[in-house]
């Protein structure tokens, strides 16, 4: 109660990229708004609160822990928001290269990843539109038993900037520990820019009506725990092919 009373609302607002297709998840990392746009990454790097593009907050420290205490969403069309701790990311991969491209992405320490990494999600993230030819990409990863395996994922034609494609192993029992490389089966036709991101989910909210504010309070939000140095990152599931403005309030409580 004290933590809820002591914190104020962060006024978040984000514009999506142009023409996101429906029923797909999009990153708001590199789009303008509040928090401000993050930079397109190069080589793999850990993201923190200090990374431009993260929600600014000061970790109380000591015996206090930080949680999502309140989260609201409003949007100009139906949309589901998902907020993550963006753990690490990399970019600069080409949509025309058919050779193996290095990824080298792994989960940083002290960010509340569970020992078995079952609370970490892995995504292919597009930073600049790729070409019109859809391709299969073979992702090479090391699983939590330190064994290297691969999984094929589909890179759709004209993959738009912001598009997120979840990477889920198809080998029974596999959980990704690190992603090593990716190889496209053929050129998409445009180099564009893409990379990979690993993240830990904190809270989600669904604006089920254009003129509705969806409220996830301290109980319904699930009180996702926010570690020190967390890089809070907004994504959304699109319901239609249009540019979207989303906004709301976020209260980070500490106690």
């Amino acid at each position, binding site marked *: *109660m*004290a933590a*809820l*009373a*002591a914190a*104020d*609302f*962060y*006024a978040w*607002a*984000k*514009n999506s990229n142009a023409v996101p297709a429906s029923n797909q998840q999009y990153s708001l990392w590199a789009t*303008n*708004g*509040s*928090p*401000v*746009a993050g930079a397109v990454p190069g080589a793999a790097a850990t993201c923190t609160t200090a990374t*431009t593009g993260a929600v*600014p907050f000061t970790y109380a420290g000591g015996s206090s822990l930080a949680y999502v*205490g*309140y989260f*609201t969403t*409003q*949007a*100009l*069309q139906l949309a589901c928001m998902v907020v993550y701790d963006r753990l690490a990311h990399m970019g600069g991969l080409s949509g025309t290269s058919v050779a193996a491209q290095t990824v080298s992405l792994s989960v940083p320490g002290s960010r509340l990843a569970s020992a078995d990494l079952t609370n970490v999600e892995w995504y292919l993230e597009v930073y600049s539109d790729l070409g019109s030819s859809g391709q299969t990409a073979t992702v090479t990863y090391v699983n939590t038993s330190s064994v290297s395996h691969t999984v094929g994922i589909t890179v759709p034609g004209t993959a738009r900037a912001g598009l997120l494609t979840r990477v889920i192993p198809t080998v029974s029992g596999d959980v990704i520990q690190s992603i090593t490389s990716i190889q496209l089966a053929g050129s998409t036709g445009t180099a564009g820019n893409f990379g990979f991101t690993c993240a830990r989910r904190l809270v989600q909210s669904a604006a089920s*009506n*254009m*003129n*509705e*504010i*969806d*409220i996830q*309070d*301290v*109980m319904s939000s699930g009180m996702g725990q926010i570690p020190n140095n967390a890089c809070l990152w907004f994504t959304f599931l699109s319901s239609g092919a249009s540019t979207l*403005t989303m*906004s709301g*309030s976020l*209260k980070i409580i500490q106690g």
Partner: protein
Amino acid sequence: MAITTVAQFQNAANGALITPIMKASVSNAQNNGTFTSLWTVAGNPPAGAVPGAAATCTSATTGAVPFTNPAGGVTTYVTSLVLNGGGTSAPGSMIAYDRLQHMGGLSGTVTTAQTVNLAVPASRNALADLSNIEWYVECYTTLGTTSQTLTVSYTNTASGAGSVAVTIPVSYRAANLIRIVPTTAGDIIQTINTCTLGGSTGTAGSFGFTCLRRISSVQSAWGFKSLNSTAFQTALGIVPNNACIAFAVLFNSGTIATCGSIGLGVG
């Protein structure tokens, strides 16, 4: 002192000042998912005046929810926020906010730079990085039938100059609010200095700018159903001394009369 226990919250809620919200019908805001301001709408609290030059709003400003600042060391919180359906079949949502500063009297036909000079006043719980402040274009009298781009010039929190283009829609309606979100990487607005229309909308109308800090939200209410944001759902929004508490609604179409209440407790 502040609320630190459930018992203290219960005391604050039990002793809360409950102010009824009863606002006359307003027509739909652009029907585009943007807020409709209830600032100038008659009812309770009473209609606020259309502002002129930039001015700080307080609890003493006509249009604000009346409340008395608590004794030193005591904080006021939103302990409940209720929205009734208002007799419409359309859903709606409502926010309560502290109206920090506002200005008006700008023309929809002037194509030269018009002075705004809007800033965040002190002692109103704005965070140092202003990340809890929202900036809006607010229409007071409907503008003309020609859509225009409005270039809003601002100073950012690094004291640099910036600008952002805002689309003024066709027949921009009175009471509609358009959120201003900078498009320059890293920019957060500290002050809005001027605005310039790309061309005439065809009618002078009247518009201005408002900066605010949101203090609570209540979700959708259909028909005559009431939606209550209580306890955890209000998230105990902090109400600073002298706050100018006002309301804005989201709704789909037609007209809506707003009924509900806000509870202010101290602890």
